[in-house]
């Protein structure tokens, strides 16, 4: 429906009508957020090291293009956690526990990779599915508490971030099959359990990103075309009306949280089952009692993508692009922490997207509106 509206206004190219569209204001607000974020990011770089700010900023903005494989590899987990947060948000749930679900996904995927002996063709598939199940379990619990005991999902899922992280670190450290204490990391994932590489040299990019994009498209279809999506959005918009219409709110809350957790869990599996550019090696997990940042980045990705599955694909790639470019800024003397600050600034501004959504389009509308009002006044 929205697409039809878009099309009709484009053919007329009536600027005023376009400004009234929902999609337009989300899009402009996201661009505005990115633009302001970059401006402030540049100021931070200028402040930290004026001499090489221009060169460093160049790396941040376009450096990622040279490492396109890595951009997509690192986009995969935040794409999944972004989808997780965005999907739950459509139902009015704030799943801040994507980190915990993601970590559980990492563990379940690792467990299947090391402990189960399966033929190479299906080993990685089963490992990915295991990661999803791990995330689902960790999403189910806050969902259950929310549905039946009305415990706020934010509180439960934050707590489950810690529980999940410590639990996983403990289990990994106690398992000699997975963990090498001398390197304080897990072993390389067995070849059969690694996700097939896409073969871009010098990067870890693999099938995961493609599966991730397919999942985003599926989520879009689920939300737009199915009765389940209809119920989910109705509940998110107005839970009283959805209850009045006989929708099973409790079931849907749990289901939404399970799906959301499963998506985050998939993110963990996609990250950890990736093959490395160096033959035979792979990603490893280091149990150092830190909550996975990819979970929280998912919130930013989801915000910047306006919780829209297709928007989230682009925001995940964008944030990953900035992060990869940022690592290159160290070539001109920037500390990696600075680039984290720049990224944080961009993410911070994306949180303003909601405010800008109204103010930017209002601003343009006013500009257009004033012209019309002024005409009769001058005539007087």
């Amino acid at each position, binding site marked *: *429906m929205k697409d039809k*509206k878009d099309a009709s206004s484009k053919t007329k190219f009536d600027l005023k*009508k376009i400004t*009234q569209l929902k999609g337009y204001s989300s899009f402009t607000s996201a661009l505005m957020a990115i633009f302001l974020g970059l401006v402030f990011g540049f100021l931070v770089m200028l402040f930290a090291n004026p001499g090489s700010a221009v060169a460093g900023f160049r790396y941040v903005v376009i450096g990622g293009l040279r490492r396109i494989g890595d951009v997509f590899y690192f986009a995969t987990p935040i794409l999944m956690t972004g989808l997780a947060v965005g999907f739950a948000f459509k139902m009015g749930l704030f799943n801040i526990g994507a980190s915990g679900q993601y970590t559980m996904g990492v563990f379940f995927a690792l467990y299947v990779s090391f402990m189960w002996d399966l033929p190479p063709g299906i080993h990685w598939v089963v490992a990915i599915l295991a990661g999803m199940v791990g995330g689902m379990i960790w999403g189910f619990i806050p969902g259950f508490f929310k549905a039946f005991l009305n415990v706020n999902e934010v509180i439960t899922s934050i707590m489950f971030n810690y529980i999940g992280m410590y639990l996983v670190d403990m289990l990994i450290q106690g398992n000699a099959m997975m963990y090498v204490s001398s390197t304080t990391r897990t072993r390389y994932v067995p070849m059969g359990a690694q996700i097939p590489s896409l073969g871009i040299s010098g990067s870890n990019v693999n099938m995961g990103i493609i599966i991730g994009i397919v999942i985003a498209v599926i989520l879009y279809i689920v939300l737009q*075309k*199915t*009765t*389940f999506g*209809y119920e989910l*959005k*109705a509940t998110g*918009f*107005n839970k*009283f*009306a*959805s*209850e*009045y*219409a*006989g*929708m*099973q709110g409790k079931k849907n809350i749990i289901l939404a949280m399970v799906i959301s957790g499963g998506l985050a869990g998939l993110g963990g599996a996609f990250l950890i089952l990736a093959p490395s550019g160096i033959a035979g090696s792979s990603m490893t997990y280091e149990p150092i009692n830190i909550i996975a940042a990819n979970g929280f980045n998912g919130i930013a990705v989801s915000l910047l993508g306006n919780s829209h599955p297709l928007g989230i694909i682009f925001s995940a790639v964008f944030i990953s692009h900035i992060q990869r470019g940022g690592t290159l800024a160290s070539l001109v003397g920037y500390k990696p922490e600075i680039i984290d600050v720049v990224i944080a600034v961009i993410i911070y501004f994306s949180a303003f997207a909601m405010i800008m959504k109204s103010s930017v389009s209002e601003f343009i509308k006013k500009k257009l*509106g004033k012209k*019309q*009002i002024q005409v*009769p006044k001058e005539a007087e």
Partner: protein
Amino acid sequence: MENYIVEMLNITKEFPGIIANDDITLKLKKGEIHALLGENGAGKSTLMSVLFGLYQAEKGNIKMNGKEVKINNPNDANAMGIGMVHQHFKLVEVFTVLENIILGVEPNKMGFLQESEAKEKVIDLSERYGLKVNPDALIEDISVGMQQRVEILKMLYRDNEILIFDEPTAVLTPQEIIELLKIMKDLANEGKSILFITHKLNEIMEVSDRCTVLRKGKYIGTVDVKDTTKEELSRMMVGRDITFSVEKEATSPKDVVLSIKDMTVASKIHKNNAVKGVSFDVRAGEIVCLAGIDGNGQTEFVHALTGLEKMVKGSISLCGKDISKASIRQRSVSGMSHIPEDRHKHGLVLDYTLEENLVLQRYWQPKFQNKGFIKFDEVRNYADELIERFDIRSGQGPITLARSMSGGNQQKAIIAREIDKDHELLVAVQPTRGLDVGAIEYIHKQLVERRDAGKAVLLISLELDEVMNVSDRILVIYEGEIVGELDPKNTNVQELGLYMSGAKRTTSKEIKNEG
């Protein structure tokens, strides 16, 4: 040349797909009550929002005391002494009455709130104008009528000279309406100028000095109320003659459709029960009206009947099937249709389009979905059909956001949805609340038509006229109990009023004997 305090000249305001105000002129004299009359969607609320600074007009200008002014936002309007009681109150539910009244103009010394000073002024104002409120009560705990008095006090506290009342009587009980009209007269006598938006002709005839009529966004005319009649006003408003009485044949009720036994429902506000052991039957082919003053347990009763809340005890059976513990969906499938009291809270998903709202009860049926995928073509066809049949007007047809539709058309959409769904029992809770005579006539016709089609209709209403005109049998509810059963043919408004206020009651034994 007369002195006008406010002049709105040639106001034009457009929304996507609709011209809400088309070249409208409205002049308000000092100290008069000026009624603004029009159907739902005629543009009354829009015009007032322009005056209040919520919208900017595309054309036209506003003069106050002869000088042209620009009102950019409600703060400007406030500064110019314009106050408004909105149709949907703008109160902070978890704040007290006093906190709501002083909100935005808190008296303070160095940033410290001077609450006692404010309280004195509020109590003083409330005594002077007979606006009974408890300054320390929380908004969420007080009745709708009292919430409205808080809104009026808010305007008086700000020393507003021009008071806009946007359909103030829509949510009130008959007694409260009488009180409100008296308050309005007093305010006008004190020199306040009042703009009174309504579509209740009786009220206009009673209190207003002049009346401006709008129809479909256009200016129809301004008349002196003492030189006109109700019939003429309604003709100006609707563009045709309106019948005020409901035409219906005598009916012979058939089988029992709904049977309620000893229903008891807990209250969310007080500790005691809101509904206490209510029992009655509704038969096919009759309209039973549950009459009562707002807050006597009707809301809780309806919630328990429709499954939104659990009963403490008792049983409900629908078409011979026990549904005491059935889910909302099961009740709906068993043949219960429900027009809810609050169309924004329960009746509609405001951020969904009209077509999405029209299938809110039916989206899961095979007609509209296949293996979980919604058949959008079917939904569109169905929506087009209902829009045509029930004359639901909106800016963009089926893809209009429910939020942007007028109240009357939102209600029409709900009624279309509930009537077109398979049902044996129609539960209509204040279905005409806030609607104009044209829409009320229409809805009453629909209710009678349902009855004539052999359905059972349970009407929950606060409007005495509606209770008397539409129903075949009246049950009066007072403090959660049925205190009387009346036949509208053998009773009158006075007697009904006595039952509703608890001054008269038939014991439950007597009711049973009669039945």
